[in-house]
C-alpha cells in the first residue's frame, strides 16, 4: 500500500512542479490543483490518524492485576510490625529518638514545624496512656512560659509572640524542651516498656518470630515476582524508557546471558537459568548492601574491641545526670519561691535562671552520653561468634548512632536526606532474606565475592572476580534484564511497544 501511495505522491509532485505559473490565470490553476490534493490527502490522513489512535489505545490496555496491590498492602502492613520484634528500646520503637533530635536541631525548621513536632511528641506519650499537661513542663523558667502558652491551645500568632518574647533571652528554648521530654520519658520508662512488651506479646500470640519473618520474606518475594510479571508495570517501564525494547529481542538477550554463562544456550537452558539468575540477583543484592554499609561494620568492630569497658557505664552516667538534674530542680524551686513573693527580686531571679540554663547545656551533653552508653552496653551481648548480620541489626537499635555514622559519610547531607538513608538501611536489614552475612562471623569478614562466584559457578555460570567486584551495578542490571525477559517474552508484543514509542514521538 505504501509503495502505491509514494508513487502517487511522486506523480503529483511532478505535476505541481511542471504546471506553468507564469501568469495569474495559470497560477490560479496550480492553486486549485494544490487545494484539491490537500483535500484528498487530508481525508486520507484523518483515516490514518483514526487507525493510529485506535491502535495506541488498544496496545495500552492491559489486565488489571488487583492481586499486586493486595500483596503490596499486606507486605507493608507486615513490615510495619517487624520493629516490635527487635531488641531496641521504647525510645527507639516509639520514634522519640528521631523526634527529639528534630527538636534539638530546631534551627533547621520554621516555628510551625517545631510546634508540630512538639505536638507529635505529646501524642506519643498519649499513645502510651500518659496525658501531659503544662505542669509537666518546668525544666526551666522559659520552658514553663512557652509550654503554658502551648497547652492553652494558643493560636499560632500568640505562640509566635511568646516565642519572640523569650527567644533572645533563651535561644536554646527548644533544646530545653527536648530535655524536658527526655526527663519525662525516663521518668515514665516502665510505662513505655510495658506498652511495647504488651504489643509484642499480642503480636507473638499465634506465631513465633521466625514464622513472622518468614511470612514477611515470602510476601516480599511474592511481590517482587508479581511486580516483574505485571503487564502494566512492564508497559510503563518501556514507555518511560526505563527499559529498552532493543534489549529484549532473542538475539540481544542471548548476548546478555553470555555475560553470565559462556556457552551456546538452548531453550531448555534458558528456562533452567531463570531460577539460578533469580538466586544470583538476590545474592548480588545482599553483597551490594554489604559493601554499601560496610563502613558501619568497620566502626562497630572498633567499638567491640573495648566492649569489656562498657559494663554498667550507663548506670554511672545516669547517676551523674540525675545529680545534675536534681540540682536544676532545686534552682527551679528557688525561682518559683522568689516569684511568689510580694516584692520580686529580679536580679536574684535572673542569676538563678542563668544558672539553670547553664546546667541544661551540661544536661544536653550528659543525656547524649547516657544514650551512647546504653548503646555501647549492647555490645556486651555480642561475642566472637556474632555474625555480620548481628552487627548490622545492632545498629538499628540506635538512631543517634546511625545518624552520626551516615552524617560522617557525607557532612553536607541535610536531616531529611539522612533519615532517608537510615530508612533505606533499615529496610535492607529487615527485608532481606540473608543467606550469607547471617552465617559469616563479623571477626572473619570473608571475601563475599569469592563465596558468590564459587557457588554460582558450581550451578553452571561463569562469573569472574573482576565482574563481581568492579562491575557489580552492571551485573545486577543485566540480571534484572534477564529476569524481566521471561514475562516480557510471554506477555508483551515488542512490535506494539515500538509502535507506542514512535506514536508518542510523532504526536509531540
Amino acid at each position, binding site marked *: 500500500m505504501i509503495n502505491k*501511495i509514494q508513487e502517487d505522491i511522486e506523480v503529483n509532485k511532478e505535476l505541481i512542479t511542471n504546471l506553468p505559473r507564469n501568469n*495569474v490565470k495559470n497560477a490560479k490553476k496550480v492553486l486549485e490543483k*494544490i487545494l484539491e490534493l490537500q483535500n484528498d490527502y487530508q481525508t486520507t490522513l484523518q483515516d490514518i490518524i483514526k487507525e*493510529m489512535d485506535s*491502535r495506541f489505545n488498544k496496545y495500552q490496555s492491559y489486565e488489571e492485576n488487583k492481586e499486586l496491590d493486595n500483596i503490596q498492602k499486606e507486605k507493608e502492613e507486615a513490615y510495619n510490625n517487624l520493629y516490635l520484634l527487635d531488641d531496641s528500646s521504647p525510645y527507639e520503637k516509639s520514634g522519640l529518638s528521631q523526634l527529639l533530635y528534630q527538636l534539638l536541631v530546631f534551627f533547621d525548621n520554621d516555628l510551625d514545624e517545631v510546634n508540630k513536632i512538639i505536638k507529635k511528641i505529646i501524642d506519643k506519650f498519649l499513645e502510651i496512656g500518659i496525658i501531659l499537661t503544662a505542669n509537666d513542663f518546668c525544666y526551666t523558667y522559659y520552658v514553663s512560659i512557652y509550654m503554658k502558652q502551648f497547652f492553652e491551645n494558643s493560636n499560632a500568632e500568640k505562640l509566635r509572640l511568646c516565642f519572640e518574647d523569650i527567644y533572645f533571652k533563651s535561644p536554646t528554648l527548644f533544646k530545653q524542651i527536648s530535655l524536658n521530654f527526655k526527663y519525662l520519658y525516663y521518668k515514665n520508662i516502665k510505662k513505655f516498656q510495658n506498652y511495647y512488651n504488651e504489643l509484642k506479646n499480642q503480636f507473638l500470640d499465634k506465631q513465633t518470630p521466625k514464622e513472622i519473618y518468614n511470612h514477611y520474606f515470602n510476601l516480599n518475594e511474592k511481590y517482587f515476582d508479581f511486580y516483574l510479571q505485571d503487564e502494566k508495570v512492564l508497559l510503563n517501564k518501556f514507555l518511560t524508557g526505563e527499559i529498552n525494547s532493543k534489549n529484549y529481542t532473542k538475539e540481544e538477550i542471548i548476548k546478555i546471558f553470555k555475560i553470565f554463562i559462556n556457552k551456546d544456550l538452548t531453550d531448555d537452558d534458558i528456562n533452567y537459568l531463570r531460577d539460578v539468575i533469580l538466586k544470583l540477583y538476590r545474592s548480588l543484592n545482599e553483597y551490594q548492601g554489604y559493601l554499601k554499609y560496610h563502613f558501619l561494620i568497620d566502626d562497630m568492630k572498633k567499638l567491640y574491641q573495648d566492649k569489656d569497658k562498657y559494663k554498667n557505664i550507663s548506670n554511672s552516667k545516669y547517676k551523674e545526670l540525675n545529680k545534675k538534674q536534681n540540682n536544676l530542680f532545686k534552682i527551679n524551686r528557688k525561682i518559683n519561691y522568689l516569684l511568689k513573693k510580694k516584692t520580686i527580686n529580679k536580679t536574684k531571679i535572673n542569676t538563678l535562671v542563668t544558672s539553670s540554663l547553664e546546667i541544661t547545656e551540661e544536661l544536653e551533653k550528659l543525656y547524649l552520653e547516657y544514650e551512647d552508653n546504653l548503646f555501647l552496653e549492647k555490645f556486651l551481648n555480642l561475642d566472637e561468634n556474632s555474625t555480620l548480620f548481628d552487627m548490622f541489626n545492632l545498629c538499628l537499635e540506635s538512631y543517634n548512632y546511625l545518624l552520626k555514622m551516615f552524617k560522617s559519610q557525607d557532612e553536607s547531607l541535610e536531616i531529611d536526606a539522612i533519615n532517608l538513608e537510615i530508612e533505606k538501611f533499615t529496610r535492607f536489614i529487615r527485608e532481606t532474606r540473608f543467606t550469607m552475612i547471617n552465617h559469616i562471623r563479623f571477626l572473619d569478614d570473608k571475601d563475599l565475592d569469592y563465596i558468590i562466584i564459587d557457588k554460582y559457578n558450581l550451578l553452571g555460570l561463569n562469573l569472574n572476580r573482576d565482574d563481581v567486584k568492579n562491575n557489580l551495578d552492571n551485573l545486577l542490571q543485566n540480571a534484572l534484564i534477564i529476569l524481566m525477559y521471561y514475562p516480557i517474552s510471554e506477555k508483551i508484543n515488542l512490535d506494539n511497544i515500538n509502535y507506542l514509542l514512535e506514536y508518542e514521538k510523532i504526536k509531540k
Partner: protein
Amino acid sequence: MQDLNNISNQELLDLYKTINDFLKYLETEQKNIEKIGEEDDK
C-alpha cells in the same frame, strides 16, 4: 482508504509520515504561489 486494519504497525507509521510530509510540501507550494500573486499585484 483501503483497509488500514491489516497493515503492519511500521507501515501505518510510514504512511502517516509520507502523507504528512506531502501535505507540508503542498502548503509550501501554496505559499510560494500566493507570494507570486502578491508581487504581481504590486
